[in-house]
Structure formats: structure tokens, C-alpha cells
């Protein structure tokens, strides 16, 4: 099992939801509003007057074979417009209860 955290501009919310739905991924945890900025580039998303835009984060725990599919989709989504911004981060799940 792998955890994938997808962090994206709020403007992509519906697309991310659509992607998860199409990939038959049911389980997820979502933070509709998160702040942050990219390590190298990308505008800060602070929800302030200066940086008005906002990010959302979706955490989903999937089987290992799904990881690559999701990452490709995310890359393609990002390719539409880099300014908007979407990133996915993967790590291991040690145990579940």
C-alpha cells in the first residue's frame, strides 16, 4: 500500500476528483484549503491579498500498481498549464488498522 498526497491549485479540484473517480479510487482524505509554495518555482498559494490563490490537498491510499497510473495522470494535468500547479508525493504505508 502506498500513500499518495496530491497537492493542487483549487482550480483543479474537479479534475482531481474526476481522475480519482475514473480510476475507481474510492478512499481519500481531503483538505480543501491548504497553503504552500513550490520548492523551486511556482507562486505561493497563501489565500492572502498578495497571494490570493489557494491549494487543496487530497491524500489517497492505493495499491502499489496504481501509483504510476496516478502519477502519469497528474503529470499530464500539470502539463496543461504549469502556472496552475499540481504535485503528487508518494510514501509507504507501514500498517493499517
Amino acid at each position, binding site marked *: 500500500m502506498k500513500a499518495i498526497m496530491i497537492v493542487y491549485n483549487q482550480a*483543479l479540484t474537479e479534475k482531481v476528483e474526476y481522475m480519482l473517480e475514473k480510476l475507481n479510487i474510492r478512499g481519500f482524505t481531503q483538505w480543501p484549503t491548504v497553503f504552500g509554495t513550490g520548492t523551486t518555482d511556482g507562486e505561493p498559494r497563501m489565500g492572502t491579498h498578495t497571494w490570493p490563490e489557494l491549494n487543496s490537498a487530497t491524500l489517497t491510499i492505493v495499491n502499489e500498481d496504481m501509483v504510476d497510473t496516478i502519477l502519469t495522470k497528474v503529470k499530464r494535468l500539470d502539463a496543461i498549464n504549469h502556472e496552475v500547479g499540481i504535485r503528487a508525493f508518494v510514501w509507504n504505508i507501514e500498517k493499517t488498522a
Partner: protein
Amino acid sequence: MSIYGSSVKKPITTIMVFVAIVVFGLYSLVKLPIDFYPEMELPAIMVFTQYPGANATDVERNISELLESGLNTVTNIKQVYSTSRDNVSIVTLEFEYGIDLDGAANDVRDALSFYSTYLPEDAEDPVIFKFSTNMMPILFYAITAEESYAGIEDQLEEKLVNPLKRIEGIGNISLVGVPTREISVNIDPRRMEAYNLTIEQIGNVLRAENLNMPSGIIDMGQMSYPLRIQGEFEESDQVKNIVLGNFQGKTIRVKDVATVNDSIKEMTIDEKINGRTGVRMIIQKQSGANTVKISRQVNKKLAQLETTLPADVKIATIFDTSDFITDSINNLTKTLLFAFLFVSLVVLFFLGRWRATLIIVLTIPISLIAAFIYLGISGNTINIISLSSLSIAIGMVVDDAIVVLENITKHVERGSTPREASIYATNEVWLAVIATTLTVVAVFFPMTMASGLTGEMFKQLGWIVTITVTTSTLAAISFTPMLSSKLLKLQSKRKQAGRFSHERIVVPWLDKLDNFYSKTLNWCLHHRLTVIISALAIIVVSVFLAAFFVKAEFIPSADQGQVTAEIELQAGVRVDETAKIARVIDAYIEKEIPEKDLVSTSSGYDEEAGFSALFGNSGSNVISITMSLVTVSERERSDFEIAEQLRTYLATFPEIVKYNVITGGSDMGMGGNTVDVEIYGYDFDKTTALANEMAEKIKKVEGARDVSISREKSKPELRISLDQDKMSASGLNTATVSNMIRNRVYGLTASQFRESGNEYDIVVRFDEDFRNSISDIENIAIPTQTGFIRLGEIGTVDEYWSPPNVERKRRERLVTVSATPYKVSIGEMSGNIKKEIAGIDIPDGISVEVGGAYEDMAESFADLFLLLVVGLVLVYLVMASQFESLKMPLIIMVSIPFAFTGVILALLITRISLSVIAALGAIMLIGIVVKNAIVLVDFINLLRDRDYELDDAIRSAGRSRLRPVLMTTITTILGMLPLALSTGEGSEIWKPMGISVIGGLLFSTAVTLIIVPVIYRIVVRRAERRKARETEELEFMEV
């Protein structure tokens, strides 16, 4: 869920909500009455007290003074003034604007009930009369007739007045100058005395004969018959054969001592309409009724009714207040449509996309229609103020929608779906949008609380702009995102733009403009001192221009196409003599004033025209001419010039003592447009002399016309003084003698002659030949126990000058010398008058003040100044909290003085005076111009937060905000342009507002774009240096 989120997700609900607003608004619109001005009840109450037999000074001392001091305690009173004439005192109480007149009337009644016990016993109870602009007549008709003139009264009453009265909302219909049928029994006193008869006896006989009397019931057999004596005259001809008595065995009939005429009552008024005999019909509406609707109904009904009247009776409109109203309103509606069109075109020009334009433009009708709901609920009318307010708002309501849409488009272009972009893009800007709206509201909302005459006028403007702008903001954050989510398409950038596309034609130009501005700004940032010095120079020059060249005026007078003249001949001139002069003037007007449409002239007074007699002076020596002109577009000269021509003509008559030519019609509520010099002082002779001296001086002042003195000239009267001793020797007293004289001269109404349901007076009196000289009066025979005695034996008849009316204000006697300005502004003229009269020696105990419309004007400007200060403070408060800074608002407010410079320049170029309306335009500018600077400064701040270097931030912000600033400015300017250019009916009133806003906005925008960034740079750089010195590194990070 946020408002924009919900509205995008529930488009149907959103549409329904806005459709509901539109439906409700349109419903209100249909119901709304149309009027010229908002209802401005002139808050005044008059108290009439009759004191029969007292002369003016007695009335003043015993009634006016007492009531003045008694009523002065009523709350909310602004001023008390009074006029005391022979027999009557009129005390006028002027209240503060906006008070409840009914409540005030109750207070006055309470005070009166307390003070009336102190009034003289013979004085009648005071009567309260509420004055309202509603009572001004709305329609004047001229009815002319040839053959049927004599019997016209019944015809008109029955076939015209009564049917018209059934129209809902009609208050009163009065006929002026209508010939009244009267059966006059003109006695030859010599014959009467020879037969030992008196007028009283003759009257009694007529009364006794003209009688029907039920006299009981008689039972005969099975039937009951009512018994009835039928003595009433069946024809007027019967009167002359009535038996008066026997003299030496001979039967004396009425015809033996008198001639009986069944004809028209002696007229005290002479009415001519376009030179033909006629009658004037004056129609008043009920309070709160719709002038335009009533006049439409009346005109429709009149057309029907006219056919039932005899063929020679013609009805023509002298003055229809609704014409002017409808024309002005139509004119403004056109203005509004043009504004709508212009604004749409500007939006299209900048955006270059149909759908986006449609989304933005749709907010216009929604916000404007919301204003109608307010008008409907608050019981207001559609009038020139409410419509011009809409015109003002039209350019501002699109601003918010533009900001929102721009951000949504940005997101869509970046690849978001319109639906998501709509939600998230609105989320980013909605707070900023509300903040900018607040600055506009901060300026307009205080107007709703303004007081005084100006307050009454501009309350609507304040409310309407506040409401429309608030609605537009609401629409911008709900309706606009919703529509964007539906209408905007996912943009796939076209590879090649079409040859005539927006990108190929407009965009390059806009880019060039951006570059030009960027370069200019850069230069200015490097030459800060030059910029600041030139800016200061501009302000100094404009203050100088304002002080020396801009003329002040109260409210611009509109050409209402009407000229009225009030002409006074020597006091005491007979009606027929007055009418002769009137004919001469009529002929002149007919020949020399081609612009006239209808001329109605009346000479003398109508005994029954009670209401109008309250306002104008009336008397046998007064001619009043009402001239309606053809519409503005069909003539070259203004009503002012025509009035001036009439004045020059009237000045050539030696017979004319005083004349007053007034332009315009029913704007009584607006307080006129004269400069009044008020002379306070107790001594009649001294004040009158001073008034005359001043009037002479004022006549020489440039542009002063219609210089008149309020104190009437003394009138000659014949006074009979009776000798008590001689009277009592003959068993007479003053009451019986005066009654007898009245019966002989004025006439005794003996009885009424009835014919087809109408009653006509039978009046017995001396034949005119026996009552038109002093010796005739002295010869009047008074019956006594022992025979006749001549009036000359018990008293004397003397010619006498009655004292003038006594006017008082602030509980002091007063004479007013007033003058109307012609081709000079009222402010300028009052200055000249002050200078001119400064040299006059003012005797002890007399004080002089300059007031009139000038005073109202000064008061209004003071109110406006207060409004300006409140507006400035509120705008500062809003901006300070928006920027969370005390300094930023000040930087932004630097643009305000330049707006005023722009106003001054615009007024100078167009040669328009600074009226209350233009000044209001200047105040409105505060809210509009700071908006531009806010957009700019806000973006500079933002870029600096994004770590741009100061100069870079300023340049990039300027470059990127240039288009939005230009777009909102140009929409506002073009929204106002039709207002400023309009030339039709009533345009004189709102034109100055359009011009001042456009001038101010143009100039201040141009300056704002340069000066605000420069000042920003200076202020912020300093602050930064200081900050850099003060800040220390936080300790925990130190190694």
C-alpha cells in the same frame, strides 16, 4: 458555502433570485408616478386671522405680534414672518426641511388655542393653512367663446367641470373670470324716494314674493291633498312686475323705480386669451397624485367633452406642467439609453469578446432596476433627480463585474474549466470588490442624511447610487460568476487571429498606450521634484481661477417655456382702464413676440379666486399675463431673452408703476432666484425712503432686473366718518347706517332666482349712475322715523390714503427690495448689490441684510461643504482599514484636489456657473476618483509584497492597471456624457453635474496616473529607510 460558490452550483436559483429582483423592479416602475422634482414639501404653515374693521397697524399690533411671539415656541421652527393688512393678519411659520408637517400643525394648533384667548374680542378664530407644493395648479386652460360667452358658466360647470372632477386625483377645478349671471335691480334713487320706498323694503318684497310654501294637507273624500303655494318666479321677467306697494292710490311696481336686467354680473376681472374673451380653468391635483397621469386623463376627457359644448367654445392649454415633466423625463430616458449603449461599447472595446461583454452589461439593468424597488417602497416618484442618479450610476455598476470577470477569464485562459474558474477566481477578488464599493458608498450614503433644501433634493441621489452600486456588487459576486460558468468557453487559443479581429486592431493600440504610459511613468519617477512642483502649480492656478472666474449660482433655472408678467398700474385705477392697457400689451406681444404660443391676460381680480389671491397681489390695477412659448427646439431665444424684451417694452409705459417678469412655471418650491435686500426697522417713512433709495441704486447694478419693493404703495380710499350726535338725533347708529350704505352701493342680495336647478342672485342696488362720485355718496338718503336724511348731513366723505401692509420677519418690521439677475450669476449680482448699497447712509434703528435665493444658496453650499467633509472622512476611514495603514489613504487622496481642478476647468471652458448641482458633481467625484488610485496603489503594494523592487513594482503595477483604470473611468465618463451634452427640456438642471463629473474625472485620472505613483515612491522610500535603520535581527537566529 460562499455566495459565489452557491450561485455557480445552483444557477437556476441564482437566475430566479435576479429575475425576482427584475420583476419586482419593473412592477414598481409601472406603478411609479412621474414628477419633475422629488416631492419637496415646503414646510410652511400659515395662520390667518381676520380682524374686521382694523387697519394694518392695528392688526400688526394686536394680532401679528402676539401670534409671532406665541408661535415662536413651536419646535423645529426656522423662521416666522407675518404680513398685516387691513382686516387680516397672515403669520407664516417656516419649518426645517424634512419635518412632519402634520405634527407641526398640531403643535401650532395647541399653541394657538393657548394664545387665542389674548386676541382682541372682535378678531375671528385663527385658521391654519398648510402650504404645500402639491397645491400648485398643474393645468391651466383657456376657454374662449363668442356667442355663448354670456351663458358659459352653467355650460362649463355642468358639461366640463363636473365630469372632470370625477377623475381620480383631481383636487380642485376653478374657473377664473367666468361671467356670472345675475338679475340686477338697478334703482333710480330719486323715484324710489318719491314713492317713499327704501332698498330694504324692495328687497323684503322680492324675498316675500319669490316663495314656494307647503301649507298643510286637506282631506277630501277618500283622498288627501297636500296644499302648496307656488309663488316662485318662473322667469326673470316677472321681477319687474312685482308690486311694491301703493302710493296715492296707484300701484307701484318694480319697473316704476328700477330697471331689471337679467345679465352678467359687473366684472372685476377682464380675461382675454390670445385677445379673445374667455375664461381660465385652473386644475389642482390632490396631494400625492400623479401629475402626468392626471393630465393625460384630463386631456383625453377634455377632447370628449369639448364636443358637447357649443361650437364657438374653444379650449386651449395655457400651461400643462406635465408637458415639461414628460419631455424632461423622456429626454433623460434617452440619455440613460445612450449611456447604456456607450458603456456597452466601451466594455466591448476593451474586452473584445461578445460573451464577456454580455455578462458585464447584464449587471446594468439588474442594478438599475433595483433602484426602482427603492423608489416604489419609499413612495417616491420617477423624476429628474432619480433618473439622473441612474445616469450617474450606470458607469459605476459595471466596475465590479469587470474586475470579477477579468479574474475569471485569467483562470480560464490558464486552462481551468469555466465552472471552477468562476468559483475560485471570484473567491480571490470578492473582498477587494466589496472594499472599493465601500468607498463609493462612503461618499453617497451621507447624502441620504443631508438636511435642508439640498438634502431633500439629494436624498434620492444618495439612496439610488448606494443601492445600485451595492446591488451591482452583489450581482458581481453571484450573478457574474454564475453566467461566466455557463457562457464562457474553455479557450483554445486560436492560432491566427482574424484580420479584423480585436487582437489585430484594438490590442496593438492598447499595447502602445501601455508602453507610452510606462515610459512616461518612468521619466516621472526620475524627475520627482519637477512633477511635484508642476502639480502644486496646477493646484495654485486652479484655486486662483476658481476665486476669480467661476461664478456661483443656486440652482440653474430651466427653460420651462413660460413667461409670466405681473404689471401694476397706479393704485386705484379702474378695471376697464387697466384692461385698456392690457389690450395694448396684448397687441404688442401678438406682433413682436413670435415665440408665443398662447397668451392669457387678466386684468383686475376675481372675487372668488381665493387661493391665488393669497399669493399674487390683486386689485383692479393689476394685469397678469401668462405667456406660453413654443417648445425649446422650435425657437432660438430663451425664455430669459423673451422676458427681457417684454421688460424693455413695459418700461416704456408711464402708466405702469411696477412690473415683474418671471420665467418658468411651477418651481415655487425652489425658493425663486432673486437677491433680496431686507431692511429692518420700525419707522414706516424712514424704511420706505431707504427702500426707494436702494431700489434706485440697485436698478443701476449690472444685470439687475425686476427691482421691486415689497411694501405696497398706499391705496386711496374713501372713508366715511359719521357724526355720533347727528346720528343719534335721527335715531341711527353706525351699524344701521353702514348696512344701508352697503346695500345701496355694493347691493343687497334679496333672493335667488331658480332656473333648471341653478340659482342666480337677485341683487338690488342703486343704478351705477347714482353711485360713482363723492357727491353721489353724500346724497344717499338714509330712512329715519321722520323721513329721509342725506348721508352728507350726518357724516363726511373724505379721500384718504390707507396705510400699507406691514411685513415682519424675525419679529421686526421689514421691507424687502428684490432683484432678479439677468445674464449674471446670483452670487456675482449679490456681491455687486452689496457694494452698491454700502455707500448708503443707514439711519439709526434700521438694519440691512442681503438674503433671498442668495441666502438659500449660501446655506446649500454650507450643507454641501459639510457633505464634502463627511465624505472625505468616511473615504479615509474605509481606505485606512482596507490598507491597514494610515499613510496609504493620504497618498491616494492626493488625487482629489485634481478632480476639483478638473471641475473648475470644465466649468470655465463651458462657461457654466458653479451651482449646487455642479458642486454636488464635485463631491461625487471623491468616491469615483479615489477608486482609480486605490486600484493602482493596491497593486503596487501587492507587487512589493511579492518582493518586487520599489521602482519595478510601481512601473509594472502602472502598466498592468492602466487598462482597468481607463476602462472604469471611460465607462463612467461615457455614462455621463449624454447627460452633459443634452440640450432638451430641463437639461439646464442636470447638465452642470455631467460636465463637472466628466471634467473632474478626466483631469484627475490623467494626473492620478502620474502623481500618485510619484508620491507613493517618495513616501514609501522614506519609510523604508527609517524601517531599515530601526529593524534589528531577531536574536535567536544569531550564531
